[in-house]
């Protein structure tokens, strides 16, 4: 028995070795891909991706806001009383701001609404795709949500995906819901539709962002969401993300951003409205966010300055 298990573990190590070295082929270079020098930059970061006190701490902290934003968009747009025929069973939605109500009543209504929301979400769970998943910071978080049924994370960098897969093993809760694939978005079959496609901090790193967006749109189910984040191409962005972030505060590794690739939020809106997708997709929301040293990330009042999140829904 003992010898057999030694043999088996030796064989396991062996196959692991072979498979990992065969996977670690060259990173795939694709039409929608990040440029070669950026690719090697991310490979170098892969090993420290999950050190929450390391170079990616700022991304981990930004993930708080992303998840709040995704929750708000998905949950906030559920029709609570659809398919409810009996008026008695309808949850109360006051025609004015809840803030006007006394606290105890407000809490009751909020509890009732959120219970209904959870009920609806538990009946129809969402299938998610994270494009440019990197080390899996967002993909893991999505996979832990009760209303998500499965998450696929795709990226073009072997090393970050390896970091992502290794880290996934550290949480048994993730083993069934989360899957990573080394693939470009355009290589996923078009009939594979998702209810939520996320694309965070990636568009500013690719050469043809519009191309990536159309490939993303082609894979969204009716009623589904595209949630993305990127950075406006303005002096404030340069100042906060490149100068402050990379040089002054050293919170993001130098070389992470290049200004000419930043995309204004209005450019995305214009593109959607002038594209063949204009009837099917609607930009529902855009919101700015900023990193405030010693505080962390905070939503701002303007989506036109610095980093922003955007939520686009496929309406038909």
């Amino acid at each position, binding site marked *: 028995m003992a010898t057999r298990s030694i043999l088996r573990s030796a064989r396991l190590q062996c196959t*692991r070795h072979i498979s*990992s070295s065969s996977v670690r082929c060259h990173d795939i270079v694709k039409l929608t891909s990040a440029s070669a020098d950026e690719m090697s930059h991310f490979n170098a970061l*892969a*090993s*420290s*991706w*999950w*050190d*929450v*006190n*390391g170079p990616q701490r700022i991304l*981990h*902290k930004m*993930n*708080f806001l992303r*998840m*709040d934003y995704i*929750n708000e968009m998905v949950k906030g747009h559920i029709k609570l009383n659809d398919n409810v025929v009996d008026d008695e069973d309808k949850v109360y939605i006051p025609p004015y701001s809840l803030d006007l109500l006394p606290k*105890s009543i407000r809490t009751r209504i909020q*509890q009732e609404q*959120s*219970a209904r929301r*959870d009920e609806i979400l538990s009946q129809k769970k969402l299938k998610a795709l994270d494009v440019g998943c990197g080390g899996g910071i967002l993909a*893991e*978080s*999505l*996979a*832990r*949500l*009760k209303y998500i049924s499965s998450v696929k994370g795709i990226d073009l960098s072997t*090393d970050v995906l*390896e*970091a992502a897969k*290794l*880290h996934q*093993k*550290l*949480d*048994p809760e993730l083993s069934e819901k989360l899957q990573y694939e080394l693939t470009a978005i355009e290589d996923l079959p078009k009939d594979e539709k998702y209810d939520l496609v996320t694309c965070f901090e990636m568009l500013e790193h690719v050469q043809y962002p519009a191309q990536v967006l159309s490939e993303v749109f082609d894979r969204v189910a009716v009623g589904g969401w595209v949630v993305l984040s990127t950075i406006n191409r303005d002096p404030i962005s340069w100042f906060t993300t490149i100068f402050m972030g990379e040089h002054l505060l050293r919170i993001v590794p130098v070389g992470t951003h290049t200004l000419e690739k930043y995309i204004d939020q209005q450019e995305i809106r214009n593109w959607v409205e002038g594209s063949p997708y204009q009837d099917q997709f609607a930009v529902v929301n855009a919101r700015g966010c900023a990193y405030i040293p010693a505080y962390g990330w905070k939503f701002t009042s303007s989506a036109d300055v610095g980093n922003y999140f955007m939520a686009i829904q496929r309406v038909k």
Partner: protein
Amino acid sequence: MFPLRRFLATTAKPLLQDVVIVGGGPAGLSLLAALKNSPTTKHLKCTLVEALKLQPVRDFGEDPPENFHNRIISLTPKSVQFMQEKSGSWDYLHQDRVKFYDNMVAYDSQDSDARIHFDASNVILDLGALSQIAAMCEVVHIQASLLQKIDALNEELPEEDQAVVIDEAKVVNIIAGNACDTIDAKSNPQTSLDWPVVTLSNGQVLQTRLLVGADGQNSPVRNYAEIESRGWSYDRFGVVGTLKLQFNDFRDIAWQRFLTTGPLAILPLPEDNATFVWSSTPELAEILVKVDEKIFPQLLNAAMTLDEVDLNYIYKMLKANPADMTVLEEIEWRTSLIPEEDLDEKFPVPISELMPGSRARFPLKFLHADTYIAPRVALVGDAAHTVHPLAGQGLNMGQTDVGLLVDALETGVDRGLDIGSTLVLEKYVATAWPNNHALMGVCDKLHKIFSTDAFPVVALRGLGLKSLNYFDVVKDIMVKAISGR
């Protein structure tokens, strides 16, 4: 046969849990109830481990004894609110064993005209309810209500989500799972769970995403996490016990007298019951626990009314002979010199009886952990801080901790984060630590002002309590500290 079984037991895979709570005191049980009561966290797999037997606590809940237990604490309105809204255990308390009070009188031993009277009954809270200073409640009663709430929640939860309470099992060992906080994809391809592995005295092994130390002052979890706890001993002891009054006092007042040896408080319980907390020097505490149970009530009455010169004389007699019945005459005679109406109005209702065997003594300490978190570890309650009971804050601070930890975990779950990660726990320590630190500072300062016999301070204290300025400051400190506002 036997060795094989042992082999199996030690190699058996540990049971995986989301949260393991060590300690079934008020803090640990509150956390378990609050987690299972929250729609956001109720699906987490939670196990609580307690070294002592919990059956007596359950029995108390089912059929409480007539006499009051001697570990009684005052619950701030904030803790009451936590029990109503978060842990949901408030409804399981026998309301006739809980005593709210809305008046507080504090006075000085050097000059009984130097007094503070705070009346909360005319302060209206925003909800429109009459305001209270605090509620007196037995610690075991709080634990019993929490156990009942947990049982009730379990009945509604699917089996796999039910909370597990393991008692009569001590945590004997905690080790890190294969720790690898930083994953280096190249040099460390083999990963296994970095979750702490907890071994119990009954042989069970649990491996947990988050380990919570609610395990009291000498917290084994705190030691495992190598979190330093700093502080000092006050060289003072607290003596507590339960009492019968000569008659029911309808005034709902908490009384506190500042003696040079430390403050003495008489706190109301339902009907003609009361409890006392007497902070004193080690020498005096030694006398206090030995004094004959028949003499003790009169000693308390004396300590609330007589001059300290008289008291010192009485202490000396009792030190020589703790059962010296002539002390009773001595006290009676000295008390007779105080005008009757003063006795009625300025002092608590006389104590008639000490409940047999209810006296206990404990050292007063100040201990505060440097932080409440480490990767996959959080501390709550006395494991995080031990405080001078002068302002009755020990248990209340633990309730606040639990509330804030649950908030942080709820946010973590909503955001799909790993709740054992410091990314989630940082919010807890950032909100809980500074407040506790400030509150502990207040308790410590109160102690330093009121527990000294160094002449200048005593003189200042006597003077000070009378002056309006000081009156307001002290009143403010006390009321804020005691009622948690």
